[in-house]
């Protein structure tokens, strides 16, 4: 019990870091699902590409000796490059793999998404090989830097990840809730045809949704790289799965739900690793998932949809 209390704050921080990444990935899943009822299995690979773009920018701007630019600017540039690159990639995927299948049976875009995922992974493996790449985070954020609260040490990297995720999520909430574009997105999610009749350009909204969702995944990729330092070509698979799970736990198609689900999943995983056993991490995560879904079949924040016949 003593042990538990001393470890609790540290595991809380670990969980929140992990949860921030999951939440950012889950948002993309959830937004796309909300609008197209499509499970975008290639989303995890977009995240992986984001991690690699961040790696490229970091290695280009921070040579062995000393960084060319102030660290803060390097990190911001990494995030921006990854978000832009991934956003465009997401738009490309939508245009190439999903748009022709808008009216096909529901399993067709699912298979197309699987195919896209395999394509992206292997394209990366072909051009960048299957080796691990290591972010040299310590060049931009000193290892010792951090905040000390009593016994608890929050490293600056983790604080940055949590902070960046919160900022991005606040920006997204503002976008969805307060702007004209957000209103159009919500309208398309509720009823695509009705929104189109009301003068919303549905195609443009779908493209924008893909752009935003993928940009968030790209940011998540860079943040993962900064904290966990290793990136490789199949890292998107597991992360995508976790993001999807988080989206489902929160209630798929629901933006605050995805954030909540991501944080919750991160916390559960960190606690499972810290207090029970790292070997049973996935088992515990999914048992929790199944229990949540059995109690609330539509996810934590999901509302029962009245099925129209």
């Amino acid at each position, binding site marked *: 019990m003593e042990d538990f209390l001393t470890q609790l704050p540290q595991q809380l921080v670990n969980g929140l870091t992990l949860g921030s990444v999951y939440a950012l990935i889950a948002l993309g899943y959830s937004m796309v699902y909300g609008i197209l009822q499509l*499970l975008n299995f290639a989303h995890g690979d977009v995240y992986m590409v984001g991690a690699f773009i961040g790696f490229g920018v970091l290695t280009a701007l921070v040579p062995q000796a000393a960084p060319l630019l102030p660290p803060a600017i390097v990190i911001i540039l990494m995030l921006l490059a990854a978000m832009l690159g991934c956003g465009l990639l997401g738009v*490309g995927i939508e245009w190439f793999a999903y748009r022709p299948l808008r009216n096909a049976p529901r399993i067709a875009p699912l298979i197309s998404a699987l195919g896209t995922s*395999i*394509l992206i992974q292997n*394209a990366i493996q*072909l051009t960048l090989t299957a080796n691990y790449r290591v972010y040299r985070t310590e060049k931009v954020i000193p290892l010792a830097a951090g905040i000390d609260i009593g016994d608890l040490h929050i490293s600056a990297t983790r604080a940055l990840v949590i902070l960046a995720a919160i900022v991005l999520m606040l920006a997204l909430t503002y976008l969805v809730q307060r702007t004209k574009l957000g209103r159009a997105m919500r309208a398309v999610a509720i009823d695509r045809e009705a929104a189109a009749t009301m003068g919303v350009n549905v195609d443009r909204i779908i493209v924008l949704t893909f752009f935003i969702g993928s940009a968030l995944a790209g940011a998540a990729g860079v943040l993962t790289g900064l904290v966990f330092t290793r990136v490789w070509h199949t890292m998107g698979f597991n992360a995508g799965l976790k993001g999807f799970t988080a989206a489902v736990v929160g209630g798929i198609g629901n933006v605050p739900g995805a954030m909540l689900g991501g944080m919750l999943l991160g916390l559960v995983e960190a606690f499972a690793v810290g207090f029970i056993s790292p070997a049973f991490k996935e*088992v515990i995560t999914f048992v929790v998932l199944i229990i949540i879904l*059995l109690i609330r079949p*539509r996810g934590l924040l999901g509302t029962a949809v009245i099925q129209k016949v």
Partner: protein
Amino acid sequence: MASPPLTTRRDALTRALERWNALPATARFFILLAAAASVPLLTSNDYVIRIAGNVCLFATLAVALNVVVGYAGLLDLGFIAFYGIGAYTYAILSSDQFGIHWPSWASLIFIGLVGLVSGFLLGSPSLRLLGDYLAIVTLGFGLVFAQLALTLDRVELPWHPGVIINLTGGTNGIVRLDPLSFFGFQLHTVTHYFYALLVWLALVLIIVHRLNQSRIGRAWRSMGEDALAAETMGMPTRRLKLLAFSCGSAIAGITGGIFAAWQQSVFPQNFSTDVLITLYAMMVLGGISNLGGAVLGAGVLAIAPELLRSPELARLIFYAALVFGLLLFTRPRRNGLLVLVSVIGLGALLRLGVQAFAPDWLSPPTLEVAAVSVSTAIDRFSQQFGIYVQGWIVLLKEPLLVGNLAFAVMIPALLALSRMKPGRIKLLLTIPAVYLLVFVWETRLAAEPAVTRLLLIGGLLVTLMIFRPNGLLGRRKVEIV
């Protein structure tokens, strides 16, 4: 002004299918079965028979998956776990792991029961969930299975401290399993297992087909079309779903048992998500809720990677497909020919240009023709062909960077081209695009066969879905709004 002809064009595939479909179903089934059974008679090459066995294995799994996904409309992403449970159950019941050696028939029947029960146990709480929620719970189940298979090599019983049981063998798996044996006859060659798998596939096909013709099958199909309407018509949808789920699991389990006996070992990576993705691809390729389609899809996706295994043969297939595709998909046909000739001309020009101005960038052909005594005619032909191609293309000494760049340019270029409106500009742009494709193939793809194989499978899935969203043999459903 002449009016356009009223008859619609039917593609060759549809016409061939119509002729084949005119035969009675039983005749078709037995013709195919006899054709498959004759494979070991035609070749004594164990490698070929092994692939044929793999086709049967995957076809059985795809048919079972079809019951769950195609007929009952349940998106089950944990299917592979039942296959794994079957294999591990067989491994535990017939190896030295615990010193248990059950007779094969008893193990297989027991595995069927285990599959049925575990399907029921997973199904009964989670079938409350709808569509995508069911997908995630089953996916989670699949992952949990994979992780348990890895970690259950050191199980400590809480009521017997100190006793550590090795249940699954962890990453080392369980090895030296007993081979299958029925009535004193022991299966020990690849051919034996091929026949066992073929018989099992035929049996499963008959059972599923009969089920599908019965009251239950009709109920399943109506449920797959519209679960709500089916329920309103008084069908016990919950029980029907559970039945489909358990049937699929039981078949997958027994197939897993046979698989374990065949390779005489089980490892966690035999039941990874990759296998699940391949299975889904097989099912969808052939067309959902079409049994023949599932078998066909399994055949295509189990054989295609093997064909691409030898780089020279893969090259031959690649160029054949390229020429065929160009001639088939450009209208009028002479345009295709035009593009082909222009690409060859462009290649020759570039090669001559590089030879004239920077001859030391070029590398001599890396291939040679093997001696007549050690190779077959087709090998020699494909090698000779490869040498010609390498003499035609700009074969660089340092292909890595340029090849990667060309690859990065090629993908968006091909995508953009695929969406352009047909016309003279598209035709003109096709020429450099095809050259780029060939260049990338020669510089990068041919050097990495494993990656190329997966790239091709991925590309195949996407393009297939775009052009035939209902699969090769699927029929377009009428959507009622």
